[in-house]
């Protein structure tokens, strides 16, 4: 492209390599991504509906599968890599993930805590008084 080592735009695939390097073509990369994503999606739907697995562990398993599929989409569809020309894109993504985690985990934590500390309903209070 140019004579300098600029960062790569997010979503751009790597600059076409020399033929002797035998890097997979873009179509192959997208197809591998689709195959992995289909595999993970089918597993998610199976996990949610099966009775073979331990019930309370299923939400955790679904979350792990979703994180894995998100990784597949980022790498194979959005071409986010660990290469030096991708540092800015990865840093922006990392900051986004940090904020998302803070918002979701923080909200759930605070609301669960508020629920636990709620005043019990009046009839329950009366039972305490009568004792």
């Amino acid at each position, binding site marked *: 492209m140019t*004579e300098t080592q600029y960062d790569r735009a997010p979503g751009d695939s790597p600059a076409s390599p020399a033929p002797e390097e035998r890097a997979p073509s873009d179509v192959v990369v997208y197809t591998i991504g689709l195959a992995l994503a289909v595999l993970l999606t089918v597993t998610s739907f199976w996990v*949610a509906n099966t009775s073979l697995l331990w019930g309370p562990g299923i939400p955790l398993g679904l979350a792990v599968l*979703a994180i894995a599929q998100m990784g597949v989409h980022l790498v194979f569809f959005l071409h986010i890599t660990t290469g030096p020309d991708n540092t800015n894109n990865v840093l922006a993504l990392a900051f986004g993930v940090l904020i998302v985690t803070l918002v979701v985990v923080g909200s759930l934590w605070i609301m669960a805590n508020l629920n636990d500390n709620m005043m019990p309903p009046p009839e329950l209070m009366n039972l305490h008084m009568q004792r």
Partner: protein
Amino acid sequence: MNIAVALDDVHTDALPDASEAGPAPKRVVVAYGFWIFLLSDIVMFSALFAAYAVLVRATAGAPTGAELFNQVSVAIETACLLVSSYTCGLMSVAIGSRRRFGTYFFALVTFVLGAAFLALELREFAGMIAAGATPQRSAFLSAFFTLVGCHGLHVAVGLIWLAVMMAQVATKGFRATVERRLLCFALFWHALDIIWIWLFTVVYLMGGRP
């Protein structure tokens, strides 16, 4: 991929570093700016996800997710959006090699699959509302319609954008400005699919459990 970069470094050492080379090409700047926008959009979605997760048990006697959700319909919607993300990638490849027919063909497939997704989602909403599960019925339903409806709205905007981009390719050809917009559209469409992964996992698979 990284090995290739390391090999490249050997004979590009003489070239100036990006920080000394002046402004980056406009394609990089535009796509990076759009990437930042997408991440802030995802932060907005995270607030809606948090609201849904907090309110998922607040059904107030209205039908719960387990009674309302139809997993077959959700699986078809997921397949539509996933394959449309794949054909959007193939459209990017066709644009990269300046193949006009390939671009139109994959754009059409992407559009049809996206429209099918939207139609299925609207049918699901209509069925729920007809069954009395309206957004004002319970806190759970308010959170559900806000979250899923916001994603559906994004898909609808994406479809309009795709139609506009095809008109631009037809009238202006593969100009640098048009190519940058197409790159941003591809980013947008792939990001919507990433949000849908969390939607079907959290809302339909986790929320649909009794």
